């Protein structure tokens, strides 16, 4: 019987900034126990030795100042709790210690354990409960934004674990170049020229026509002109334009989380309200990394990447071969062909994004990183019949009860 998968023509990815799974979606365990979020037995020691439990006291703005450290050495401390033993295992016990290092303030350091109540995030939590939420989507690297976002575009960071510009090493190409070379369509929509692109300036320099603004995305949705693959970047800064004040909506601390909620709703609704587009589009909302904020699930080991780390010691006293994922982040797949309350337990990371787009629209290609080649796919063109979890767009009739937001 044909399913939603047979209708699929467009994949859209919206990548937000710097929030962990437990921080944004952890409250949902109380609503659906299959969602692996906050439970009563979780805690982290503060620097006085007191165990601090996660609290539903996260605020939209003004709480996480200074910006929690999420560079490689800090994330190592967060994941391994400060252990440097050769046989150490990730225990997620170093979040408060890491945040304390920035201000030496015990009270402030405990705020890293705060999470949002469901009622404070009505958009993200509604989407998570209505569609497919991923219990095991991890950042690609236990490190900061740029190298993690590189995985979403190239399937690798070419050895980088930091924020410095990276050189693209042939024969690996961006997923956009691969799509265009295969006669397919693809675009990166940044919010506006003042926000611009965060991680693919190299593409902007060489292929500026790959880029459009969020206004263009909205027009493309209205005119049925959306490319087969779209990647959307939020607004990374508060700035003025001719059209008025633009509040940052990327949700990076200390930007307003509600502005990001509004942006997610806007992206969703522009697809949702076009009856030509909604049935054949899948939207993935995902965060680039956890931003130093608490999550309780230890990141698993993974296939090492083929590019050696650009730093012999990335600040931890140990070499890194990209054989461990970063901290877990929120990820939700949206389509009217996905059953309500779907929870996915398989492991994904941002290399799954180019991997899925490549396999779905183009087919196999050997010129890809080992991380991308081995990453699980969130949409498979020919999912195995015996495993229903491999076809998330599995409904045979399109839902007509999907949420509508008042944008």
């Amino acid at each position: 019987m044909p399913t939603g998968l047979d209708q699929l023509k467009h994949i859209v990815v919206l990548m937000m900034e710097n929030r962990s799974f437990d921080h944004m979606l952890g409250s949902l365990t109380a609503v659906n126990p299959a969602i692996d979020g906050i439970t009563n037995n979780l805690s982290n020691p503060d620097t006085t030795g007191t165990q601090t439990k996660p609290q539903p006291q996260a605020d939209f703005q003004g709480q996480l100042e200074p910006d929690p450290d999420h560079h490689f050495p800090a994330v190592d401390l967060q994941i391994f709790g400060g252990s440097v033993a050769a046989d150490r295992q990730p225990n997620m016990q170093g979040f408060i210690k890491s945040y304390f290092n920035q201000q030496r303030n015990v009270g402030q350091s405990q705020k890293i354990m705060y999470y949002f109540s469901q009622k404070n995030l009505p958009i993200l939590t509604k989407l998570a409960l209505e569609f497919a939420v991923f219990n095991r989507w991890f950042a690609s690297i236990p490190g900061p934004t740029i190298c993690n976002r590189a995985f979403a575009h190239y399937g690798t960071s070419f050895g980088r674990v930091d924020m410095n510009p990276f050189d693209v090493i042939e024969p690996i190409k961006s997923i956009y170049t691969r799509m265009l070379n295969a006669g397919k369509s693809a675009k990166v929509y940044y919010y506006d020229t003042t926000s611009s692109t965060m991680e693919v300036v190299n593409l902007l320099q060489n292929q500026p026509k790959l880029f459009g603004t969020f206004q263009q995305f909205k027009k493309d949705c209205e005119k049925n002109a959306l490319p087969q693959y779209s990647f959307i970047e939020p607004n990374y800064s508060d700035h003025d334009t001719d059209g008025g004040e633009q509040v940052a909506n990327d949700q990076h601390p200390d930007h307003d989380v509600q502005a990001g909620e509004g942006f997610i709703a806007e992206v969703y609704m522009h697809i949702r309200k076009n009856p030509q587009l909604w049935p054949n589009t899948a939207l993935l909302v995902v965060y680039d990394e956890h931003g130093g904020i608490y999550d309780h699930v230890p990141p698993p080991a993974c296939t090492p990447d083929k590019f050696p780390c650009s730093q012999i010691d990335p600040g931890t006293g140990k070499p890194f071969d990209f054989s461990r994922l970063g901290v877990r982040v929120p990820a939700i797949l949206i389509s009217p062909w996905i059953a309500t309350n779907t929870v996915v337990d398989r492991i994904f990371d941002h290399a799954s994004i180019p991997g899925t787009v490549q396999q779905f629209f183009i087919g196999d290609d050997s010129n890809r990183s080992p991380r991308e080649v081995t990453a699980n796919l969130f949409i498979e063109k020919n999912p195995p019949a015996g495993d229903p979890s491999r076809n998330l767009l599995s409904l045979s009739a399109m839902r007509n009860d999907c949420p509508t937001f008042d944008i």
Partner: protein
Amino acid sequence: MELIPVPKPSKKAMKPDRAANALLLAQVSHLQHAERRLPLGYRSEIYTHAIKTEGEAAEYIRAVTEAIHRAHADAEKRRARRERRLEIAAAAEKPKRKRKPKSAQRAKRK
């Protein structure tokens, strides 16, 4: 169907004078790499080491992003003009078809 209200950020959320975070400063640095490759006429006159606030970072990011687009658009225009000139030159070089002498045309009519 229920219409779910969308939260709006507080009026105090807008803070372009807040210190630029590490991410924005990294973006500035990436764009600075790109700016160095632009022809001189397209470069901004913004001193990136003096960028401290989010608003200042945004101003620089816009200047370089728009300059990159402008430089490519201008290159495309120049390419199109060159191609047009080549087409005109090629058309001018084509051998003209020989016209029959008028006497031959008159003979044919008869």
